[in-house]
């Protein structure tokens, strides 16, 4: 079983993930934008770049009403990114199997702190999703699956941290594989497409000389 998870199933997951992500982005790009016939009053490139950057920060008009969502959202995403790119086993993996080079990994205490922040954020976001009457109505099975698969991949990774048992590491790999296979067909694609959506609306607004 371990051989299958670490071998053929891993290759399958990588292929589905890569092909799926590239395919979906290509489909979005091929849709294109409707032609803007208005005279340009500003730079669409500047507008796109500005909107992509600006939307990393919450609007001050909505901070008060959305503070729970904003704080929990940042906790989860920052924690997850730190784990994904700066956890020592991940840096090692990327160096050995993908990129051929590495970078300094975060110390153990920072890993634990990042994991705790990410877990707290993820659980709080999911709870708010199911507790708030509006988000509950908007929530589909896809949202639950995405949250639970992410949780599973994260928690098995933390359980395997000390690599005391090979079985725990294999379980983590399985969790990551399931997440990779599900990723291109789910809302998780926002990890790649948020650039496109922000960029598109920013470019259009920038061309009209306004901020998006």
């Amino acid at each position, binding site marked *: 079983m371990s051989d299958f998870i670490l071998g053929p199933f891993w290759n399958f997951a990588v292929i589905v993930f890569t092909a799926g992500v590239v395919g979906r982005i290509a489909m979005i790009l091929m849709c294109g934008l409707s032609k803007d016939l208005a005279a340009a009053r500003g730079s669409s490139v500047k507008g796109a770049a500005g909107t992509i950057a600006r939307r990393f920060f919450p609007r001050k008009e909505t901070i008060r009403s959305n503070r*729970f969502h904003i704080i929990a959202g940042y906790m989860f995403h920052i924690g997850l990114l730190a784990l994904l790119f700066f956890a020592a086993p991940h840096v090692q993996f990327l160096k050995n199997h993908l990129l051929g080079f590495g970078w300094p990994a975060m110390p153990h205490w920072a890993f*634990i702190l990042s*994991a*705790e922040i990410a*877990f*707290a954020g993820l*659980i*709080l976001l999911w*709870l*708010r999703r199911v*507790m*708030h*009457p509006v988000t509950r109505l908007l929530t589909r099975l896809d949202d639950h699956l995405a949250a639970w698969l992410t949780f599973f991949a994260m*928690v098995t990774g*933390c*359980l395997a*941290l*000390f690599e*005391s*048992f090979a*079985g*725990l590491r294999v379980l983590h790999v399985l969790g990551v594989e399931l997440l990779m296979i599900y990723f291109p067909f789910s809302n998780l694609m926002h990890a790649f497409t948020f650039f496109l959506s922000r960029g598109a609306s920013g470019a259009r607004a920038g061309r009209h000389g306004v901020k998006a």
Partner: protein
Amino acid sequence: MIWAGVLLLLGTFTLPVLPYLWASASNDIASLDTVQNNPRANFWRNVRTGTAGYSAVGGPEANVLINNDGQNWRQFRMRLLAPYGSYLMGAVLFTIAIFYALRGPVQHLSNEPKELLLRFSVYQRVVHWFTAILFWILALTGLILLYGRFVLIPLFGSSGFALTASASKEAHNLFGPIFIVALFLLVIEYARDNFYRKGDLSWLIKGGGMLGKHASAGRFNFGEKIWFWLVLLLGTIISFSGIILDFANLNFDRNTLELAHVLHGIAAILFISVSFGHIYLGTIGTKGTLRGMTTGYVEQAWAELHHDKWRPDDGATPEASRVPGAPNE
């Protein structure tokens, strides 16, 4: 030649027991059994008193060759905490089962059409379930660490249990600090309505309405208030002792770690035991209560039966009000 062989055999078999025979004949065998069965016994007995000597190695207790407190702690864990903890949790579950069989669930008369009242805001519910989820992750992993060798080894085998225990320890250490944050948020959010108020004692005397007579209560009854303060007390003990155990490498001495573990174990078992009652009363024990913590709304008939002194506008929910059109799930 034959006699020589016989003497050799006799000598071989009897020589080793000669000291015993001699001691037995001279009535010294009783004292041998107690203090002198091993000439080095007194030496090791002295070593186990924990007297500090000299060692070139630095660090807490490095000068003590054998610290017997570790053995005492192990005995406490295996012979007192584990069995009596299981008796307590089992007794609570058994009592609840008997009570449910005899009394059944507390039901309120439902009015038609149902008028709903907002009892808990979204934030209050999120904080409650955040704490509850973390509590049960920690409770289950903690119980695996305490009872796994008795329950899981027969099921999973030694290797399977070792893997499960390792995973449980990592999860317990990881989610523990998040529970402290959750506990803090819970206390801040719910403290205001959980202070003692006039009438709480009479609620308790009437057995919270379980003995037949109606017992009046405000937003939270005295039982819920006791549970709240127990959560704070036991949660604080568990949190502080848990931090010490989580950061055991920060030069804590053995006695501190043992004390932390003893307190952690006792508080956790009490916490889990009392939580059974909370879960029972919040779910199958009292109809309509769980709905308040899932959708946020309760029926007016439920509120009049259990919290007749509560008016939605004196609750902690700023948006609390009568909401006739609220979701009826």
